[in-house]
């Protein structure tokens, strides 16, 4: 190596050399045995039931509806929230929004909207990628029907729609369904903190209200 090597490469080689020295010439690499549960022992209906129960347990509100009733359910929820300006990702199914009240302003997200523009939205409606029943978790992967991460972060109220075929029982069943090249957000209940006397309080920086609609057919 020459003296012209940038500092980054010297640091890199030094750290890697230290590690190799520390490990010695022939470190033993232990096998990983995966004796833990990787599948599910629950019937599909029971998985959905567990999901609803666990999401509810973390103070998110769970609703169940059929495909045909989804637009009415959504309209009722939004009306009840009092929100006047609602954001949706660009790829959200138009059919879901057909029964919204006329005076409601529905904003389709655009790349040109900056954070301040997102901050004017009172509520956001998205689809989701995977639900995990055991932990009451919803995963978003920024697909066109879920939108970029900021869209589900800045507004204070998130309504998330999930279909039963997207819900799995355990964490090990969920990860193979996810694409690591996408930005992923796992959500388990509304934003919370336990920083004061380790008591859980809902509602800090993320959306303070989370509604989950399970589409049952």
């Amino acid at each position, binding site marked *: 190596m020459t003296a012209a090597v940038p500092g980054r490469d010297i*640091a890199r080689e030094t750290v890697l050399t230290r590690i190799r020295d520390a490990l010695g010439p022939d470190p033993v690499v232990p096998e990983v045995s995966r004796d833990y549960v990787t599948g599910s022992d629950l019937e599909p209906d029971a998985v959905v039931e567990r999901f609803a129960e666990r999401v509810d347990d973390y103070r998110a509100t769970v609703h169940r509806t059929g495909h045909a009733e989804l637009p009415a359910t959504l309209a009722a929820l939004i009306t009840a929230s009092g929100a006047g300006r609602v954001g949706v990702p660009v790829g959200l199914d138009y059919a879901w929004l057909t029964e919204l009240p006329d005076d409601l302003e529905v904003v389709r997200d655009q790349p040109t909207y900056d954070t301040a523009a997102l901050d004017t939205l009172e509520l956001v409606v998205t689809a989701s990628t995977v639900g995990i029943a055991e932990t009451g978790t919803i995963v978003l992967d920024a697909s066109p029907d879920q939108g970029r991460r900021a869209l589900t972060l800045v507004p204070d109220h998130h309504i998330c729609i999930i279909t039963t075929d997207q819900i799995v029982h355990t964490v090990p069943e969920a990860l193979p369904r996810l694409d690591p*090249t996408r930005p992923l957000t796992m959500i388990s*209940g509304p934003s*919370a903190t336990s920083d004061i006397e*380790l008591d859980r309080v809902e509602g800090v*920086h*993320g959306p303070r209200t989370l509604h989950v609609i399970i589409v049952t057919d």
Partner: protein
Amino acid sequence: MSVAPQERGKGAPQERGKRAPQERGKVVPQGRTLLPVVVHAPRGVGHLRGDESFPDAARGALADTQLRRNLGHATATIRDKRAKVVGEVDDWEALRTAGKAIKDHTMARLPELLTQLEANVTAAGGVVHWARDATEANQIVTRLVAETGSREVVKVKSMATQEIALNEALADAGIEAFETDLAELIVQLGDDKPSHILVPAIHKNRAEIRELFARTLPGVDPELTDDPAALAGAARQHLRERFLTAKVGISGANFAVADTGTLSVVESEGNGRMCLTLPETLITVMGIEKLVPTWQDLEVFLQLLPRSSTGERMNPYTSLWTGVHEGDGPQSFHLVLLDNGRTAVLADEAGRETLNCIRCSACLNVCPVYERAGGHAYGSVYPGPIGAILSPQLTGIEDNASLPYASTLCGACYEVCPVKIDIPSILVHLRAEHVEAQRETRRVPTAEAISMAAASWTMADASRWEKAQTASRAGRLLGRRRDKDAGRIRSLPGPLAAWTAARDAPRPPAETFRQWWARDRGADT
């Protein structure tokens, strides 16, 4: 010039090295002893060393009854929550075993996995930096922030950046760092120090936090109550504008996945999502040990960490990102890989598994010593049982010599550790290393060494032992002073005072077991 010989050179001033234990005495063909230098975290930078020893620092904490009440309440709450959610997982032990195996496997393949991570992050549009120590990491981050032109950054709670004192380094360069985690904010506003890995402000109760907010938050509602929800609301209001306008975010990482280049931050409040998503530039500082080999491995740690840490089935938010995502989040991403003594930990086979730690803090919450002494007494940003083994290994035993003794070796920490780190055994190992280091540096034997030699001589012969036991009854004179101290000697005379400086000695019994046996059963034998 080649890098490796420079690394081994004796003259490098910042490298107070010592030989790796397994290499001691190894001779190379030239007849020279091979000395792979073990490089600890440097002095003079970062928060790994306290100003005083653990017993001295603990004395003040023990006298603070408010602090002990706060800690007792908080640790009892979290212990119960953890026990409940761990109890509902039938395969918990299998998950712990897998977690340990994955981390052991990672350490053995660390060079290969780090370069794999680097390649994948780079391919996804990120830039990877390597930092040999805290000083270098601080320089890299400061330069990266300066290049953006921004004079302020928002931070999501990170042990690594606390360890290297990044905020202080940024301040020296005229850059203001805003902590956004509620507990970190409380610590920062109070010009205080963190005292817990998960909840840095665990030593403060709601009334103290209300008082702090009322005094330090600009424009705060004077009617603010000490209801935790109201306090969280005040923090939300205070930080909202900061999040929406920040140009640079700084984070740590809970996990990095070598085979995909994915980084992960596990959090609750949404401040993490804000810092990871809204700024144009994201800088992540991560210890070299925080990676896992494969995407699948996350299925183990995403079950172990939340239940062990906050006692929840899953934390509210987990963010996973891989390099730069077009049209979503920061368009400039830098990953700083930090050594700062970690390779020194790796070099000691008996202590190596300390690096398996996933910073859940379950061991703090069950530790009887932590519950009473609190986190500040440990001096380092890593308190509790894990800190008692991690800090001395990062700095070298001489700089944190009292920490391996800050334990009763009760073993509760091992029982709850999600990656089965055998903390009690490593504590004993480090105590031995400390004694060894003392012997090497002192010409005159310590009082402890002299008394051990004397005890050995006495116990080797039955009549000498009997005489010594009889003589020890004189010690009863010391322990009879006050009723509340009955049975205890609070202060021994002469050189033995060192023993009772931090503990009580039992008052010797009226007769020894042998004397009792001779009196009671002597006639039968």
